[in-house]
C-alpha cells in the first residue's frame, strides 16, 4: 500500500512534467503476466544469471509460491547461498540462516498488492511499448514472447516469455543500454499445483533477529530527504523516464543511510546518502578511481550492477544500479554539481 501511494504520486509527477499516459501501449497479456503471481500457485526451479563486464554471477533456487503472497525460495547454488532459504509472507520477508540457527526478519517490498501492481504497470507502460515476438517453449510449456522497447532509446530493454496458459513469466532477459544481455531469470522446471501453507512455516528453534531498520516506514523520497538529519539531496535530473519511487533509511556496518529508489518501470537505481564518511570496497574486483566534476569517486561492479561512491566533504553519496556507468556518472554530477 505504501508503495502504491508513492508510485501513484510518481505517476502524477511524471504526468505533470508532460509525460502523457501512453494508453495505446497497454497490453493485456503483459498486465496479466505482472499480476499472475497474485493468482497462480506454483513450484519449480529458477536459474538467475547476472552478466557483468568483469564478472558474472548465477543463482539457482527451488521456489514454491502460494497465491497471493506466500513464497519460499531454497537456494541450491552458488555455494555461498546453498542451504539458505527465504520465505516471504505478505509484507515481511524471513531469511533462514541454517548454520547460525537464526532467522533475519525484514520488510518485504515485493508485495502483490493490486494498487501497487496497477501503479507499477502504469509507470512501465509510460516508458515502454510492447511488441509481440512470436512463440517459444520454456520448461516444456508454450510461451508468448513480448519485447519491451524503451520509448526513449528505442532499444529492447526486456524480453519476456509468458506461459500462454498460466500467464506466469517463465523467462525474462534484460538488456543493458548498449543492447547486450545483462541478466536472465528462467524457470528450468515448473508445475502448477496447490502448495500447502505449512510449506511456509518457520523453524521454531531458530533465534529471530530483526533487521535494525524494520520499523522504518518507507515514504516518498521527497518526504524522507528532509528528515535525514544531514544535508541530504535528491538528483536534480533523472535519466529519461525515471521517477522517484520510494525512500527509507537503512543501516550498513553501523552507518545509517538514506536510501532513495528510482525506477522507469523496469530498470531501477538507488541513491544512498550518509553524513558519515565511508569507503567503497569490492570483494572480487578492484574499485576504480574516477572523477565526478572536481571530486574523486570510486566505482565498483557487483556482477552486472554498478556502484559509484563519492563525497562532497560532508555527505557520502553512493549510486547503485544497472543503468550503466555513463548514466551513474551523469546522475552523480547532477547531485553534486
Amino acid at each position: 500500500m505504501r508503495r502504491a501511494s508513492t508510485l501513484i504520486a510518481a505517476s502524477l509527477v511524471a504526468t505533470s512534467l508532460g509525460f502523457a499516459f501512453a494508453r495505446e501501449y497497454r497490453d493485456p497479456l503483459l498486465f496479466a503476466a505482472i499480476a499472475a503471481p497474485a493468482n497462480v500457485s506454483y513450484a519449480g526451479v529458477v536459474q538467475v544469471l547476472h552478466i557483468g563486464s568483469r564478472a558474472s554471477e548465477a543463482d539457482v533456487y527451488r521456489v514454491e509460491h502460494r497465491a497471493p503472497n506466500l513464497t519460499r525460495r531454497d537456494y541450491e547454488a552458488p555455494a555461498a547461498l546453498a542451504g539458505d532459504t527465504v520465505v516471504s509472507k505478505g509484507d515481511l520477508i524471513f531469511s533462514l540462516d541454517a548454520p547460525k540457527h537464526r532467522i533475519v526478519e525484514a520488510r518485504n517490498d515485493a508485495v502483490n498488492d493490486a494498487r501497487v501492481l496497477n501503479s507499477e504497470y502504469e509507470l512501465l507502460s509510460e516508458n515502454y511499448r510492447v511488441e509481440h515476438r512470436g512463440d517459444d517453449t520454456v520448461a516444456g510449456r508454450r510461451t508468448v514472447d513480448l519485447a519491451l522497447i524503451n520509448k526513449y532509446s528505442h532499444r529492447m530493454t526486456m524480453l519476456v516469455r509468458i506461459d500462454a496458459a498460466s500467464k506466469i513469466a517463465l523467462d525474462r532477459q534484460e538488456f543493458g543500454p548498449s543492447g547486450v544481455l545483462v541478466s536472465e531469470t528462467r524457470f528450468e522446471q515448473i508445475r502448477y499445483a496447490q502448495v500447502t501453507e505449512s510449506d511456509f512455516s518457520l523453524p521454531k528453534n531458530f533465534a529471530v533477529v530483526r533487521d535494525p531498520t524494520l520499523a522504518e516506514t518507507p515514504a516518498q523520497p521527497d518526504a524522507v530527504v528532509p528528515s535525514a538529519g544531514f544535508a541530504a539531496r535528491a538528483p536534480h535530473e533523472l535519466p529519461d523516464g525515471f521517477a522517484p519511487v520510494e525512500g527509507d533509511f537503512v543501516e550498513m556496518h553501523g552507518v545509517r543511510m538514506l536510501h532513495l529508489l528510482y525506477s522507469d518501470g523496469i530498470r531501477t537505481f538507488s541513491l544512498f546518502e550518509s553524513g558519515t564518511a565511508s569507503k567503497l570496497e569490492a570483494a572480487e574486483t578492484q574499485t576504480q578511481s574516477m572523477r565526478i566534476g572536481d571530486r574523486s569517486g570510486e566505482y565498483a561492479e557487483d556482477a552486472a550492477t554498478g556502484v559509484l561512491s563519492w563525497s562532497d566533504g560532508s555527505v557520502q553519496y553512493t549510486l547503485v544500479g544497472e543503468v550503466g556507468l555513463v548514466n551513474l556518472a551523469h546522475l552523480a554530477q547532477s547531485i553534486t554539481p
Partner: protein
Amino acid sequence: MNETHPSIEHIVDYLHGELSPAEDAAIYAHLASCPECDGKRNEEVAITEALRAYAHATERDMPPGLAPRIRSVAMQAQPAVWQRFVTGFRPVVMVPVAAALAVAIYIGYDSWHHAATPTSIQAASYVNNHAAMAASAPFGDAAPPLTLTSDDATR
C-alpha cells in the same frame, strides 16, 4: 553461508554487554548453536566469577579509627606556599599527572585516527539493499537472502 566463529575478544565484549545490538544478537544466536564457542563463553564466565570471588575473599577492613587519624593528620599539616609548589613536582604527583596526560593524548589521537578512517562498506552490501527495495518492480529479481552487515555482507 560461511560459518565463522567469534573471536575470544568478541565473546568477552558480549559478556560485558559492549557490542552493538546486531552484533549482540548474532553472537547470542551463534553461541546457542556452537558448543565450542559456548564452552569458551563458559570458561570466561568461570574466570570472571573466580576473580570476583577471590576479590571478595581477600577484602580486609581498615583498622578501626585509621581513617579519622589520617584525616586529622592531614588537616594539621598545612605546608607553606613554596612547599606546596615544590611538592607539586614530586614524583608521587608528577607520575600520575604524566600518565593521565599520556592517556589523554592517546585517547585523543585514537579518536582522531578513527574519525579520519572511514568505514569500509562492500559494494555487495549496497547491491543487496538496492535489490531488496527494487524487488517489487515489474519482473524485478527476487530479493536476495538478507544478511546483517555486522556479519560482513560479502557472500
